[in-house]
């Protein structure tokens, strides 16, 4: 009986940690607060949260932020397996119907294509993983649904966005081109502000 209660407590703790990470990732302060409240009565949960916070606090640059978040997430997945049971959204393929539903809910379907989108709703055909322009053109031909070129462009953009959203990614990368203000003098000696760009590439690191 005691063992059973211990297991329940461990399971609950693992789930709370998972919720905490998700709430942090999503900026859900209410979610964070509710886990912290639970930690008031659970020293072990409190200790785990402190470790997670420490990892997050070390984030100052994009590179460390993403890498550390992944590191923490990977550790959690490794050591708290039961908290992640059934949590594999990146394994669930995106379908044509998923995209059509999102287009409809975001009201991004041009009036002229609304009938075409309606036909795609509920379609369970998986999207091609590459989601290249050519792959989407082929998909459109295979589906036999006539719609404007603009519709298929928005369809593809939305499919990519949905894929990004479903990723509980093993890897996230970023690159940025920052602008820098450079102050140059022209030949007349007047100050002239020009926008010069430098390449400041920041790879968020393998997650």
């Amino acid at each position, binding site marked *: 009986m005691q063992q059973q209660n211990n297991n329940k407590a461990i399971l609950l703790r693992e789930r709370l940690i998972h919720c905490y990470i998700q709430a942090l*990732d*999503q*900026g859900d302060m209410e979610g964070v607060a509710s886990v912290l409240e639970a930690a008031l009565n659970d020293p072990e949960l409190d200790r785990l949260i402190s470790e997670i916070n420490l990892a997050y606090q070390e*984030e*100052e*640059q*994009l590179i460390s*932020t*993403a890498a550390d*978040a992944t590191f923490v997430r990977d550790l959690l997945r490794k050591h708290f397996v039961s908290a992640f049971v059934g949590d594999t959204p*990146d394994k669930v*393929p*995106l379908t044509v119907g998923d995209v059509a539903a999102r287009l409809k809910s975001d009201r991004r379907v041009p009036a002229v294509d609304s009938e075409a989108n309606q036909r795609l709703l509920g379609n369970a055909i998986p999207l091609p*993983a*590459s*989601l*290249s*322009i*050519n792959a989407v053109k082929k998909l459109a031909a295979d589906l036999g649904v006539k719609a404007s070129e603009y519709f298929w462009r928005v369809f*593809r*953009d939305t499919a*990519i*966005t*949905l*894929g*990004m*959203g*479903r*990723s509980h*990614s*093993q*890897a*996230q*990368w*970023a*690159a*940025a*081109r*920052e*602008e820098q203000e450079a102050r140059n003098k022209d030949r007349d000696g007047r100050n002239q502000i020009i926008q010069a*760009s430098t*390449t400041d*590439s*920041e*790879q*968020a690191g*393998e*997650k």
Partner: protein
Amino acid sequence: MTTSTSWKEPIAEMLAAVRRVYEEAGLDQNATKSEIVPLYDLIGAYPIRVAELQDLTYQIADDFLRVETGQRIPIPARKNKPLAGYLYVYEFATQFYGCILVKANDMIQRRRFSAAHELGHYVLHFMPVLEREKHRSSSK
């Protein structure tokens, strides 16, 4: 006096990458040599979308991607630093799904340059990681 040839290797690598991108897009590089580069068709060979945002910064990129994907991206302390271009990718379904953001108020030449620059990151820096990962998984 010796002539250094160290520059030849990276240039050859880049040219090979350009050829690869054209092939992936199903385009004939020679046929388009004298024309404007079909940049958005080349980007479209990969699961990348392009969006143009006014006064792009890390914060604005985060706001946009949060609304679009539901995910928050890590942003550095200099969140309001003006950006010309930004690329964020997630691994999904054994691919890197990404979004290139460019500053909408830049002139067209610069927007194209920014988008091309980010495509370069994707092809030269991110794709090799994915390839290595796939190779590692398949050899397990």
